[in-house]
């Protein structure tokens, strides 16, 4: 009996070992990790980086961003701007059809924008189009008739948009998913389930074949795509939350593309599967300028000068690039020369000048939202201020929701924040800190800064625009210092050798239409 049992056990073990029970490398199929369930595929409602990955394969917009991040024609073949810069006329491409055969019409853009702005939709990104004439009033319920809003479709091929004030970056703005066209008939027919597979109709390089929620999403090539059928047959997007599990799956050959967890990066940098992409995503520490001692600008400058950013890359290992200015490199009008550099001597001198005795100062509190990276950064900055200034620092963390509430009601003296570009224009980064920006948690306002940013948004001359942003950045990062930019993050990928032509963009977007997998 015992002998038979061992024999049986051996047989099972051998069978397991020899079995190819799981497929390692299916041809023309790409398996990626989305890391978490996309909250929605409804492009009027989506707000986050995960939903975008799926949506960008399924749908296209008026423009797309070229390799230099300038807008290029996509669904719009070309566009004209009026002399005063307030009216845009887009001519749509011929021959574009949705996956059910219905042709693209300009009215579908109007329908989409109406839905985005309709109060009943409760879209969080509605404010994205507030530059359009009467959009804000319509969204606020003060205007009931959408035909008064500055977007209309005089014919099937033409879309006309009227802005309240000229916005230089408007063509880049309409690359963003919330402005994609919409099939109102389908949304009305299927209601909230219109994004489910079987109901969802799209016009991008891929179509939604299957969506097993919280587990995986499957996209198939769209034979009718106007740009030509993509080389891939199928994309399977899994949702594996644990970074290290995803990496193990990658090494087992079960995933083709993953983000590398920070601490594993070093092991990968020499390997052929490694791919790094700097992003247009800034990481900064903000001061609440209403809370002492940070109500004194000299103190803020001192604390900024006491941070040695050069240590972050070694600490985080994620390809973070130290940045003392705010507009990230790669963004038009960036200027990395600006900002305060590490200078502990001057920092201490400034503190003395402000009449602060570090030993007597109450402990300064850094608050951040729970995350490995944020924790490391906070503890590092705590050490900087302790060692270079002699100040006592406490570190506290909060859950994301609680953190956000605190930021909007009673911001901590020192807090951390990140910002990723919604569209590749410096205005997206700079108008964050104007006096009326709802995302400015520092309590700081500067009229000269506000004026500079407002003018730059409308300035057409590139040289003048650069000059305006330089001056604004000087105020933000060198003079008043309500924030201390720390670094710009990068994306670190592991890609299987069988995957070719994968090119991530600095906007942290992926386009798989040109990718091949053998």
């Amino acid at each position, binding site marked *: 009996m015992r002998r038979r049992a061992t024999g049986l056990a051996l047989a099972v073990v051998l069978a397991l070992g020899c079995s190819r029970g799981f497929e390692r490398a299916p041809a023309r199929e790409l398996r990626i990790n989305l890391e978490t369930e996309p909250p929605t595929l409804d492009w009027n409602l989506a707000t986050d980086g995960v939903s975008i990955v799926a949506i960008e394969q399924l749908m296209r917009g008026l423009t797309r961003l070229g390799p230099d991040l300038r807008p290029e024609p996509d669904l719009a073949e070309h566009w004209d701007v009026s002399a005063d810069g307030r009216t845009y006329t887009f001519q749509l491409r011929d021959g574009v059809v949705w996956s059910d055969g219905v042709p693209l019409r300009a009215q579908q853009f109007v329908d989409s924008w109406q839905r985005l702005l309709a109060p009943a939709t409760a879209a969080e990104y509605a404010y994205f189009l507030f530059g359009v004439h009467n959009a804000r009033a319509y969204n606020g319920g003060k205007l009931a008739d959408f035909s008064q809003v500055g977007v209309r479709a005089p014919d099937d091929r033409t879309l006309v948009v009227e802005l309240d004030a000229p916005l230089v970056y408007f063509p880049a703005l309409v690359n963003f998913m919330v402005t994609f066209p919409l099939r109102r008939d389908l949304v009305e027919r299927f209601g909230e389930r219109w994004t489910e597979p079987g109901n969802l109709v799209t016009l991008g390089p891929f179509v939604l074949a299957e969506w097993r929620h919280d587990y995986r999403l499957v996209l198939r090539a769209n034979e009718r795509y106007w740009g030509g059928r993509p080389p891939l047959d199928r994309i399977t997007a899994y949702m594996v939350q644990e970074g290290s599990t995803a990496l193990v799956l990658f090494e087992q050959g079960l995933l083709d593309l993953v983000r590398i*967890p920070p601490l594993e990066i070093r092991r990968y940098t020499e390997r052929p599967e490694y791919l790094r992409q700097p992003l247009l995503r800034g990481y900064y520490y903000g001061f609440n300028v209403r809370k002492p001692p940070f109500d004194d600008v000299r103190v803020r400058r001192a604390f900024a000068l006491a941070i040695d950013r050069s240590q972050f890359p070694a600490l985080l290992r994620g390809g973070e690039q130290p940045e003392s200015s705010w507009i990230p490199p790669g963004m038009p009008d960036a200027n990395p020369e600006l900002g305060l550099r590490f200078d502990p001597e001057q920092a201490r001198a400034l503190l003395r000048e402000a009449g602060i005795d570090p030993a007597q100062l109450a402990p300064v509190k850094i608050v951040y939202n729970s995350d490995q990276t944020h924790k490391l950064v906070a503890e590092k900055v705590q050490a900087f201020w302790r060692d270079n200034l002699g100040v006592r620092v406490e570190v506290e963390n909060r859950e994301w929701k609680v953190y956000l509430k605190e930021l909007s009601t009673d911001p901590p003296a020192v807090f951390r924040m990140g910002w990723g570009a919604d569209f590749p224009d410096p205005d997206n980064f700079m108008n964050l800190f104007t006096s009326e920006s709802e995302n400015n948690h520092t309590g700081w306002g500067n009229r000269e800064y506000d004026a500079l940013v407002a003018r730059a948004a409308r300035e057409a001359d590139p040289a003048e625009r650069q000059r305006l942003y330089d001056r604004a950045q000087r105020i933000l990062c060198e003079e008043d210092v309500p924030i201390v930019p720390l670094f710009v993050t990068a994306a670190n990928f592991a890609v299987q050798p069988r995957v070719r032509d994968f090119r991530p963009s600095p906007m942290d977007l992926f386009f798989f239409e040109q990718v091949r997998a053998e």
Partner: protein
Amino acid sequence: MNARGWVGLVIVLALAGLALAGDRLAGYRFDAQDTAQALAAPSLAHWLGCDALGRDLFARLCEGGRVSLLVAVGATALALALGLGYGALAGWVGGRLDALLMRGVDVIYALPDVLVTVLLIEVLQAALTGLPDLWRRLAALAVALGFAGFVGVARLVRALVLQAREEVWVEAARASGASPGRILLRHVLPNIAAPLFVSAAFRIPAAILAESTLSFIGLGIQPPFSSWGTLANDGFEAMRSYPHLIFFPCVAILCALLGFHLLGEALRERLAPRFRA
């Protein structure tokens, strides 16, 4: 107490000793950062290596041990206190109160304990505003875990009290007119102390287990402090490249649990052989 019990006791005492004073042995503070030594492998200078910020892992483990043991002991004490009160009340008074209290137990069993614990931690964290940060978190964890664990104790106590009621000397005390409180205190309690003690010996490892699991998913103790669970989580992320980061915390947890289980088994054999905690 048998040999294994002694082994368990030794392990427990050793861990407690390390937790209290271990980092002084090593000579590093648990929060001293040294970027140059980040992620160093175990060596003579750093016996267990360093973490991503260059902090000595041995010192971190000792500090983590303090936290884990504190939470576990606090949770156990609370569970015992609550369970004792609840179970004694139900068992002694009996009748409808007992039925109601046992219904309450049914309801609590029907709630997923993980979810309730997470909820309680968040509620308490928000409510206990007066305390400094670390103590607030520790208290929230201890109370939440204690609350999650008291039901088992309550059931045990109730059964014991029910049994004790039938004992001769208790009947005699009642007949002589002593107050219920006095009877409970002087006659019942001493007799149920032994099984309770054994129960405590098993509750502590259960609390350590629960706390480290919660910390592993990020809901337990918050940085800059750590417990064994958070150290294990840090290690899990870098499992392939820096295995020492996950290995040692796991060993610590295993040893602690093993030690307490051995001790508990031996105590049970000695003090209360008929009861299984």
